[in-house]
């Protein structure tokens, strides 16, 4: 059962993309570590981390696409799940600092000593253990998504209203995390990490491994997303997007379908955040900013929503553009992003991947039509997709 579920996910294009991601996971670290700095093929460490960051964004966009592109739920709060995953990882990294902090307290992170706290708050317990922290990376965003979705989908909050309350959710979390007495480092957030699993977070080798982990995790999540959208469940999902009431009157529980997808997606976003934090070295409440969540929507729209490749390509391209722009003309970036979104909405409503796909299908259709009109036995020559 599981095998057929996974095999169904591996259609041609997905297999190729996964292969590319795995190759990148091996090649980039190799070019960073094995090729000496003077060589033109050498990739500097800062670039490795930068690309690792893009891959985390790609995973976040993939997560959003699962709910938006396939199920029609425009979440403007996915940045919150990303940030929560990031905070869970950040808490682990803080606990790893141990007595090496500025104040030298063996248990309490610096900011708590600074606030004159005497004891570790209960919600920081267990974060010194990596497996526990990783569990929280999944559970915290998943639980928030579950509670939020439970109420929203049961009371049939749809469309713009749902988008607005997701924005409100991430905004409320941002305000909460800004407060010092919440116990998450206030506006400075969590930073100055030293080690992850005993390896220095600054070391070249650690950075290479984190990059590879990001690429492998993106490949795994792509496989999972593909298995979901290619199953009958995935077809129901698209049905919910296109004609929700039809799905209901066929006897499906739309609220459960949405809830499951929303929770899976939130967990993926959490994983992306957890991989992001050690590579950038900080997590702070700014990650909850409503604008961040909106940017994710732009990446997904640019790449092509409702396709699996689209969000990945969109996230990488837009962020590479952002790195270039903010270096060259920092004051123009926001205008460029806004302009890009408008241009895509007007001229490429299906995004880059959607447009290319449409072009290919049209070409295939005309070719098939012209071959059929020539009277050949082409139809029998084309194998049906294997079941």
């Amino acid at each position: 059962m599981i095998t057929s579920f996974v095999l169904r996910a591996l259609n041609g294009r997905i297999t190729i993309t996964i292969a590319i991601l795995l190759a990148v996971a091996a090649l980039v670290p190799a070019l960073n570590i094995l090729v000496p700095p003077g060589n033109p093929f050498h990739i500097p460490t800062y670039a490795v981390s930068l690309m690792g960051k893009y891959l985390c964004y790609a995973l976040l966009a993939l997560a959003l696409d699962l709910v938006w592109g396939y199920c029609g739920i425009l979440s403007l709060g996915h940045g919150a799940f990303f940030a929560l995953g990031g905070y869970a990882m950040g808490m682990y990294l803080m606990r790893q600092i141990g007595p090496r902090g500025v104040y030298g307290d063996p248990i309490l992170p610096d900011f708590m000593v600074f606030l004159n706290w005497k004891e570790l708050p209960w919600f920081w317990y267990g974060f010194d253990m990596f497996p526990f922290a990783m569990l929280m990376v999944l559970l915290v965003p998943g639980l928030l998504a579950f509670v939020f979705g439970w109420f929203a989908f049961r009371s049939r909050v749809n469309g713009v209203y749902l988008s607005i309350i997701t924005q409100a959710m991430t905004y409320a979390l941002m305000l909460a995390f800004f407060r010092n007495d919440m116990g998450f480092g206030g506006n400075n957030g969590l930073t100055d990490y030293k080690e992850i699993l005993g390896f220095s977070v600054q070391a070249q080798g650690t950075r290479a491994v984190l990059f590879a982990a990001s690429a492998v995790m993106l490949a795994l999540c792509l496989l999972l997303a593909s298995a979901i959208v290619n199953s009958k469940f995935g077809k129901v999902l698209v049905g919910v997007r296109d004609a929700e009431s039809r799905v209901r009157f066929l006897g499906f529980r739309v609220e459960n379908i949405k809830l499951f997808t929303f929770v899976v997606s939130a967990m993926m976003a959490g994983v992306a955040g957890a991989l992001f934090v050690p590579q950038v070295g900080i997590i702070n409440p700014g990650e909850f900013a409503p604008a961040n969540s909106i940017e994710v929507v732009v990446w997904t729209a640019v790449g092509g929503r409702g396709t699996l490749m689209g969000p990945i390509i969109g996230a990488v391209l837009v962020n590479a553009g952002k790195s270039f722009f903010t270096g060259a003309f920092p004051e123009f970036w926001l205008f460029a992003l806004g302009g890009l979104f408008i241009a895509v909405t007007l001229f490429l409503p299906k995004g880059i991947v959607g447009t290319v796909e449409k072009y290919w299908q049209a070409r295939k259709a005309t070719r098939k039509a012209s071959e059929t009109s020539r009277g050949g036995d082409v139809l029998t020559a084309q194998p049906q997709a294997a079941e």
Partner: protein
Amino acid sequence: MTEETNAPRSLLYLDGVSVSFDGFKALNSLSLVIEPGELRAIIGPNGAGKTTMMDVITGKTRPDTGTVLFEDTIDLTKRDEADIAQLGIGRKFQKPTVFESHTVWDNLELALNRPRGVYSTLFYRLSGEDKDRIEEILATIRLSHRKDELAANLSHGQKQWLEIGMLLAQEPKLLLVDEPVAGMTDAETAETAVLLREIARTRSVVVVEHDMGFIRDLGVKVTCLAEGSVLAEGSIDFVSSDPKVIENYLGR
């Protein structure tokens, strides 16, 4: 006890059902009984409450007052859409609603009466039996030759048929069909009448229609609604000669 007490006397039983929207009574103490195996036609002017009646039966709208029973005992006013669909009530919307970005085949596969939970659908595999069933429905709705095409590419009439096919795949005991021939050519209309009679051999069907020729073709008991309640009920000749029906509906 006689044997008959086991079989439900009525499949669908509506009594004194009222629905109002902002004070406007869309249904006004409506009463209606559909027997098992019956094919019933419902006519009535625009705004008579025909669609609202279907909304009440399928759980989309809660009535303010009144009784709605399925198979004599099941209170439909306490159930939601998914529950009611699973009980065996299928519904075709007034505006044809199919999954446009899926193929004709996938539309039917989704509608097929199989476990509908998250887990079952994630791991669902098309069995030989399900395949045969879909092929059979495709033949019934005359769409076998277009099974691999996107539903978006079908003609209006074909979409109506596909939606009827989806209801068949659902294997309902009662089928509610809202204006199935709206926008169809005469040939398609005639064929739809044949199709519905075929379907009604094995289940109850309630058809709402404005097309009097089509209703005549069906040749079944007719109920005329107006202003949210039943105006007349009987054969088409009886109903269409009723002065109230002529005044409220046919004469207009």
